[in-house]
Structures are given as C-alpha cells and as structure tokens.
C-alpha cells in the first residue's frame, strides 16, 4: 500500500466537477483577498474625494485602456484555446495558449512602461514621493493603493502566465495526459478571474475624475 492518493471519486466526470467547484471556491478566496485593498480605496475616495480625482488624472489613461483591451483579448483567446482543446484540436489550442501568453506579456510590458514613467515623476509613495499639487498626503494615499492593487494583480497575472506556458509546452511536446482538457479549463477559469479583477481595477484607477467633476 504505497502512499498513492486513494482516488475518492468513482468516475472522471465527477472528478472534473469537483475540481471546477474547488477552483471556484478558491477564486472566491482570491476575491476576498482583494477586499481590504478595495475597501481602503473606497475609504480614500470618500474621505479625500477631491484629491483622489486630482491624483487619478495623473494616471496614463491611454496605456490603461490599451492594457484593458489586451487583457480582454487574452481572455477571449484563452476561451478559444479551451474550446479548441475540448474539441481535441491540440495544434490550434497550443497556438491560442501561446497567443494568450504573449498578450499577457504585452500587458506586463505596458504596465512596466507606466511604472517607469510614474517612478520618474516621483509618484512612488516611498520616501521619494513628491507631488506639486495640493493635498500631497491624500494623493500619496491614492498612489499607494494604485501601486498595491496593480502589483497584486500583476503577481496573479504572472502566476497565470506560468500556468499557460507550462501547458503550452506540455501540449507542444504531445503530453496529452498532462495537458488534459479539464486542466486547461481550470487554467482558463483562473485566467478569466484575473481578467475580471482588472476589468474592475481599470475604471477605479484610471477613469475616476476624468471629467473634472
């Protein structure tokens, strides 16, 4: 009796439903993980409404919109990859996984560019924070949340991208068992969750106060 896992499920279909349900619960824990940051944002927006509007006008909305488009497209590519894998069109699925991975890389590159320009403008909320306008403390509070939210999101994105890379390489090398359709589906669920988080971060961090209200 080796230490192999006793297979608690009788059939593979039930195993797949359990994995999906388990992953959905995990995604909900990730949602709660973003909770405190979102509440910190809500607190800042209520207490320092004016300063938040001023600060968010300093974020680069074109790069933000571009990033959102990239991530939405990567989500679509991922969904197509999952559909292809389920249809056993492995070649197509591998290609689409690669496209999703590249779109993820593009997102990180654009994000890196944004970070670099904000670093030069001394907007990083560390010791070197310098903001000419009024109420620098509240602007610094906004920028802490901006960097915290985008950094935690980027971290989750990187985890998703490594998953994609591993599956793409496995399928490329023909390891059909490792790259089973239900596993690709699970990776897809995780990727779509990371995309949904960004869908909400985009208006909060980039579109607030654009209209000068």
């Amino acid at each position, binding site marked *: *009796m*080796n*230490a*192999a*896992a*006793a*297979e*608690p*499920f009788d059939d593979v279909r*039930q195993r797949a*439903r*359990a994995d999906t*349900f*388990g992953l959905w*619960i*995990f995604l*909900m*824990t*990730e949602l*709660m*993980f*973003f*909770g*405190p*940051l979102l*509440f*910190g944002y809500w*607190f*800042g927006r209520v*207490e*320092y409404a004016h300063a938040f509007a001023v600060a968010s006008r300093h974020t680069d909305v074109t790069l933000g919109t571009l990033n959102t488009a990239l991530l939405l497209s990567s989500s679509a590519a991922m969904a197509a990859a999952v559909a292809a894998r389920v249809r056993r069109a492995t070649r197509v699925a591998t290609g689409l996984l690669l496209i999703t991975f590249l779109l993820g890389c593009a997102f990180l590159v654009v994000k890196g560019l944004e970070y670099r320009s904000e670093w030069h403008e001394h907007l990083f*909320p*560390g*010791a070197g924070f310098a903001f000419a306008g009024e109420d620098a*403390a*509240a602007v*610094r*509070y906004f920028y*802490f*949340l901006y960097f*915290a939210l985008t950094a935690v999101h980027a971290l989750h994105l990187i985890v998703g991208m490594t998953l994609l890379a591993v599956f793409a390489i496995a399928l490329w090398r023909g390891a059909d068992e490792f790259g089973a359709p239900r596993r690709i589906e699970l990776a897809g669920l995780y990727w779509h969750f990371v995309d949904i988080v960004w869908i909400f971060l985009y208006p909060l961090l980039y579109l607030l106060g654009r209209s000068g209200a």
Partner: protein
Amino acid sequence: MSNGTERVTEADNYLAAGTTLRSWLTTHDHKRIALLYMISITAFFFIGGAAAVLMRFELATPAGDLVSHDTYNKLFTMHGVIMVWMFLIPSIPAGLGNFLMPMMIGARDLAFPRLNLLSWYLYVGGGLFTVVALIAGGADTGWTFYAPFSTLFSNTHVIFVLFGVFVVGFSSILTGINFIVTVHMLRAPGLTWFRLPLFVWANYATSIILVLATPVLAMTLLLLAAERLLGVGIFDPALGGDPLLFQHLFWFYSHPAVYIMVLPAMGVVSEIVPCFARKRVYGYRSMAYAILAIAIIGFMVWGHHMFVSGQSAYASLLFSLLSFLVAIPSAIKVFNWLATLKGGSIEFAAPMLYALGFIGLFTLGGLTGLILASLSADVHLTDTYFVVAHFHYIMVGGAVMAYLGGVHFWWPKIIGRTYPEMWGRIAALIAFFGFNLTFFPQFLLGYAGMPRRYHVYPERYQLLHVLSSAGASILAIGYLLPLGYLTWSLFRGPRASSNPWRATGLEWTTSSPPPPHNFAQTPIVTEEAYAYDSSADPKESRA
C-alpha cells in the same frame, strides 16, 4: 449496517500501512494527516500553555518581579498568537475533522488528498516559523497587532510573526476548500443533507467562514507588513490613513474566527450528547439551521470590539443590535442539548463529562457575551479582565473542553485502543474545577476595573489574581493528565472493538482503527442520524 466487532488483522489497518517516516510525511491518507495535525496541535498547545502559566505566576504579585515589562508583553503576545492560530482554529476542523469528515459521509478520502497534505505542511511550516520568531525575540504587539503601535513604534519581530500567521492562514483556506467540496460531492448514496451528522454540518459551516474570512486577514497582515517595512500604507494617520481602518479589517476576520473556533466544538458536543444519552438529538433541523445562522450572522457583528475605539455612535448601535441577534442561534443550541438529555439514559463516561462541562461553561460565556454586547456596559467592561474571562469561557471552557471530549470519544476509533476510563473522568473533573477557579475571579477583576495586558497592577486586585493563578496550576494538571494516560493508552491500552460506545454514525460501522480506504464497500444510508433508543435497556456491557 454491518456491526463488525472482529479484531482488525495487522494488514488492513491504516496505522500499519507504512511504518517509515517517509510513509508518514508523504501520506495522502486523510487519517494519517489528521494524526500529524493532532501531534503538532498538541505540541503548540503546550507551548502556548507554558506562556499562560508564566503569565499567571507573574500576575500573582502586584509588582512586576518575575519577568520584565518587555518579556511580559512578549508572553501575552505569544500566548495569544499560538493559542488562536496554532491551536484553536485548526484543533477540531483539521485534527478531528480531517479524520472523521470522510468517514462520517461514507467516503474513501477527502476530495483533494494532496491539497490536504500541503495544508499540513503550510500549517507546520508557518507554525514553527512563528514559534521560532516568538521565542527568538518575540513580538510585543498582542495577537491583535493594532496599528500604529505595530507599524511605527514596536521594535520587535513583528514582521516574522505576521509572515508566520500569513502562511498558517493559507493552511486554513485549503482545509476549508477541501471540506466544502467533500461534503457537496462525496456523500454516500442515501445520505441527504438532513441525514448528515451535526459534526459534518458544523465543519461545513466552519469551512465557509474559513474560506471567506481568512483571505481578508491575509491581505490585512500584508498591508501591516508593507506599512512597517516601506512606510507606505492605509493605516498610518500621517499618510492620510486611519488606525480604525485596521481594526475594522482585523476584526472582520477575527470575529468570524471565534466562530471558527466554537462551531466545530458545538458539532462535537452534538455527537457526544445523543450517544451517551442514548437518545436522538432534539430538534435536529433547527440545530442545523442554527449552525448556518451563526456562520452567516457571525460576519456582521465585528464592530462590538470597537465600541470605545472612536467608532461612530450610530455604527456602534447597529453592531450592538446585530451582536444580540447572533446570540439567538447559540441559545437555541443550548436548549436543544438540554432537551436531548430529557428522557435519555445518560452514562457519565469521560466524553460526556467534557460535553456537559461544555454546555455549562459555554452558556455562562455566552451570557457574559450579552453583557459585553450591551453598549453602556461595554464602555466600562471592554479592555478589562471581564473580556478576558468572557472569551476564555468560550475558548477554553467551550472549544478546549469539546476538543478533549472529542479526542476521548473517537480515541478508540483513531488509535484502536481504549483509554483508562477512571483517569479520563478524573482529568475532566480537575480541568472543570481548575478552569472555574482560574477564570471566574477574572469576571470580578474586570468589573472592578482591572485593565487587560497589565504587567503590574494596584494591590487591591491581588487577592483575585492569586485565586486565578491557583486555578491556573490546577487547570495545568487537568491538561497534563490526559497527555499522560493517552500516551500510555497508545502503547499498552486494551484493543478497542469497532463500536465501543454503541454509537450510530458511519465511522463506527468500520473497524478500529479503520482500513486505509475506510469502507470495504461504500455504505448505503437509509435513516436519520442518531437512531438511538433510550427506552431499550442496555443488556450487554460495553466491550
């Protein structure tokens, strides 16, 4: 259901299924992982307990003559952190729950066996890391880590302790996911939701809290560490933040956490009382709904920790009302346990003594909780020993009593040997008496105005402190006894039959200790849980 009483041959017994250390450390068997958990939980319990005993000796005298201010502050932080995260939260869900959940629903194992092993490694890794940090320098912030003291003014190993607790948090999350999926998808045929034992209900509701509240703690501790390391954050008033923001986020986790600690204990008591009263539990359906109600309303009451913290008066009114509502399901459960006793045929075995002790002490703890939920009383009593006594009545009087009761009740099933019954009863009585002598004087101390976390105190409180310290040493004996005779029973206890207490429940239908895959073939469930009949006079004596 076959009521096999034949002795278990060496071969098909999960304990003998591999004796090398590697077989234990890489096991996927939920029963072995449960044992690994119970060993590490017991070790952490006695480390935290040692810190408590040291504090009680220090507090026997008004002057700070045993340990310095700093050491005392580090002691109560160590006691808090270890007892909350390393003992109370994992004890019943991860210890007993891991062993029993699959067996009670007729499954071969949890839904994700490998994830279960990972959660143990996260628990032991995070736990050891925290204990080393606490001993090697310690943190003096209290287990509540209030900002801005923990972020700007404490110069101790706060970051290490935060990281340790952060890792242990993920172990709870994984256990929660495992339990929820298992209860939903792996129930034996015929085992509908309302035929589940209440222990399964309790752990299911606890898993919902674990899964939803622990991530909030993880992010809050991360923000605290960021503020302490990088000087950036949302809690530092100089940076536009608000210290009460930390308290809101911390208590949003920590109040549901106290329900994580007490709900499984209620589940254990709901198993023990019907078995030793030989009677079906009273109002099974309302008990199940009460468990779910506690889990959900438990998320809405955290503001009663902040009545005097500068929170707005209107929010305090709202939280006080919600805190009174969450007390209703607990009251219903106590009445149902009492009603189960009526008309039963009660046997006072050790598990039953622990369960009866739980009912009494949990009721007193709950009632004093109501006093603290009353707004004007809380203004006087919060942050005093009244609060310390209240939550120890629920945690030690409730959760620890139920944990010990559960360990004694399922010991024959887990180890395959019985413990010395007389010693079991003596230990339960000593623990009950020692507990009351330790914590009842603290209610009086609290009302007399003795603040919490005080290293030195005015002389007029000394007599009550001496009583409490005396009680603490008796309580320590009450906890060391089981360590003694249970270890003896491990090696030389008489072999146990598969159902020594003639209890209902699927875990008792298989052999003791159970085979690696629990059941020869998956059992079919045909009737309600707790099919006891107190009028049938017990003929054959217990094996």
